């Protein structure tokens, strides 16, 4: 069956450091992979989408990589701030089969000042 794993449930780092979150998947061949931020009691907010033919995508302090051979995506937040504290979810879509977004459980990031 399809499976999405995010490396850890919680990640604690100090302000200014780079946070790296991992998303691994099995039994998928996604056309693209997405990352979302979710704050407590709120719906997820879209951050970045990366396609299978893209190695890396950047948006301000965010960077996403996508390795279809390893079946892995890395999500980096550079110069992290306490305001970055939230749960980060990765989500996959099936390649050409046309199904919908399936989410991982998420990693809760805490940035301390």
């Amino acid at each position, binding site marked *: 069956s399809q499976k999405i794993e995010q490396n850890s449930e919680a990640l604690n780092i100090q302000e200014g450091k780079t946070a790296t979150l991992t998303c691994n998947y099995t039994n998928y061949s996604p056309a693209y992979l997405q990352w979302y931020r979710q704050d407590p009691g709120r719906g997820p907010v879209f951050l970045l989408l990366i396609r299978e033919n893209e190695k890396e995508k950047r948006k301000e302090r965010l960077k996403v990589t996508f390795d279809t051979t390893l079946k892995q995506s890395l999500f980096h937040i550079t110069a992290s701030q306490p305001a970055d504290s939230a749960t980060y979810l990765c989500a996959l879509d099936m390649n050409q089969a046309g199904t919908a*977004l399936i989410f991982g459980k998420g990693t809760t990031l805490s940035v301390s000042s």
Partner: protein
Amino acid sequence: DAMVIQNPRYQVTQFGKPVTLSCSQTLNHNVMYWYQQKSSQAPKLLFHYYDKDFNNEADTPDNFQSRRPNTSFCFLDIRSPGLGDAAMYLCATSRDYREGNFGPGTRLTVT
């Protein structure tokens, strides 16, 4: 601003009493999704519509039904809520399965 709206934000229902959650969008997106999210868990896809085509996930209980009368509106009906159905219900939209736009969610409590 274009957005996804969910009503109500909080819903309390009694065990076994049917309840309907609503979602509307001003984005004119062709795909609408319903997710169930319990505490510290991943959002779980219940079903989605691609235009008028309904797609049910294999493990979605029969107790959950959905209607999409037009592009803008989508409803989630829970026919006989059980205590295990207490959760946050999230509606989302996208254009052709790309980036998802989520509503604020409806927190359902079953008493």
